[in-house]
């Protein structure tokens, strides 16, 4: 990890020597550069806020959609299939536009940019979460259900105390993936005017006219956020695994 950072910064510095680069726009030693950096980084608050809210919503919705998918009744399974197939075939960007511009016309409910973004991201992700949960729950052996039944646990308690705790441990890497994906997809919410990282960078490019440098910083911003998230997920995985080995 450390070596990777040294390598990446060396590469940037070297290329900075070329005449085409103008690092002054984001040079922290200069007042204007420092202000530009602060301006760009201020978007992180919304990128993180939106992604984390959306992932929390989509995990809950995903679980609620996954459970009927495991039912023996055909009607419930059909509900699950229909939801998953329809929701996951809508491109995230289209969903964002639809929720922000379309939903108010349809329902009379106007959402602000933040909540429209959260709703669209969460909805889109929930179909994937549903499939992840379904796979995780299905991977738990029948013996676990039978043991729970033999001590007379009802379905809810079986899920809550026996099946889900085991399923979640198994799907943790996939959930981590979705969180990373969510952080990246949140950049699309910039199109409806959300002041998150990408939007901030776009605005700065318009005033400074230095796309190469500014977007490079943007890339690094996402990289740092995602590396932090990945490390967090890995730590959680280790902790959960350590508790039962």
């Amino acid at each position, binding site marked *: 990890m450390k070596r990777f950072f040294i390598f990446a910064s060396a590469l940037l510095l070297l290329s900075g020597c070329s005449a085409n680069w103008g690092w002054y726009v984001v040079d922290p030693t200069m007042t204007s550069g420092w202000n530009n950096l602060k301006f760009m980084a201020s978007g992180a608050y919304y990128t993180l806020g939106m992604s984390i809210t959306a992932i929390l919503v989509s995990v809950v919705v995903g679980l609620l959609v996954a459970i009927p998918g495991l039912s023996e009744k055909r009607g419930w399974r059909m509900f699950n299939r229909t939801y998953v197939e329809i929701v996951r075939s809508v491109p995230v960007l289209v969903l964002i536009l639809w929720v922000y511009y379309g939903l108010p016309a349809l329902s009379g409910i106007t959402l602000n940019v933040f909540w429209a973004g959260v709703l669209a991201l969460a909805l889109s992700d929930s179909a994937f979460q549903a499939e992840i949960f379904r796979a995780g729950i299905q991977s738990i052996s029948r*013996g676990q259900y039978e*043991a729970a*039944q033999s*001590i007379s*646990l009802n379905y809810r308690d079986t899920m809550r*105390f026996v099946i889900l705790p085991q399923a979640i441990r198994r799907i943790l890497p996939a959930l981590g993936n979705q969180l990373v994906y969510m952080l990246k997809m949140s950049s699309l919410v910039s199109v409806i005017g959300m002041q998150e990282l990408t939007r901030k960078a776009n605005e700065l490019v318009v005033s400074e006219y230095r796309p190469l440098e500014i977007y490079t910083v943007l890339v690094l911003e996402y990289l740092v956020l995602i590396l932090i998230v990945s490390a967090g997920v890995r730590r959680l995985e280790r902790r959960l695994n350590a508790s*039962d*080995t």
Partner: protein
Amino acid sequence: MPIISMRNVSKFFGDFQALKNVSLDVALGERVVICGPSGSGKSTLIRCINRLEAHEVGHIVVDGTTLTNKPADLEKIRSNVGMVFQQFNLFPHLSVMDNLCLGPRRVLGLTDQEARARAMKHLERVQIPDQAEKFPRQLSGGQQQRVAIARSLCMEPRILLFDEPTSALDPEMIAEVLDVMTELASSGMTMIVVTHEMGFARRVADRMVFMDKGEIVEFGTPEDVFTAPKSKRFATFIKQILNH
């Protein structure tokens, strides 16, 4: 009056008939050992008693309650009928103590303290009180199966079903599990045991049931069936088992 009464029970898996018109009564406190070749329907038979499998034809009455799909009846029967599985089926993410306390807490409504006290009592009975805070993976197979027995006992059932409890164990661990089961039998627990351990059957069983191709072919006291088997199929089976 028998505590378990099965009348003309049939069970199908698709086209395959796993149980053919089986009738069996078990009295309170009786120990019944079921044996038979694999695929003979012996596991299916005991799995019908706590409705892990639903029978299609016939009647099963357990402790005065007729087996149907009514959730209230099912809950009542299952909290009265414990089951021990071949593969133990302990909950791997829970400590031994939590494995034991889950049912008493959530189903019987015991407080944390009561459930733990009960769990310790039964862990002592299966002789592993010192393993309470470990996780199933840290235990040997024999210890895991004894935890599974203790988990069933914590529900204080009137009947215990054993589905080949020693078949997944290394030979040196079979004895410790059979010892626990023998102790249970001598305490008067009603037990139905599917097993190939003929020594155990001879020692403990009040009655032997031999099944083949979904039917009860032979039953009687161990003494009778071992010394004078009535059917040729059972005689052959016994010979194969004892001479392997």
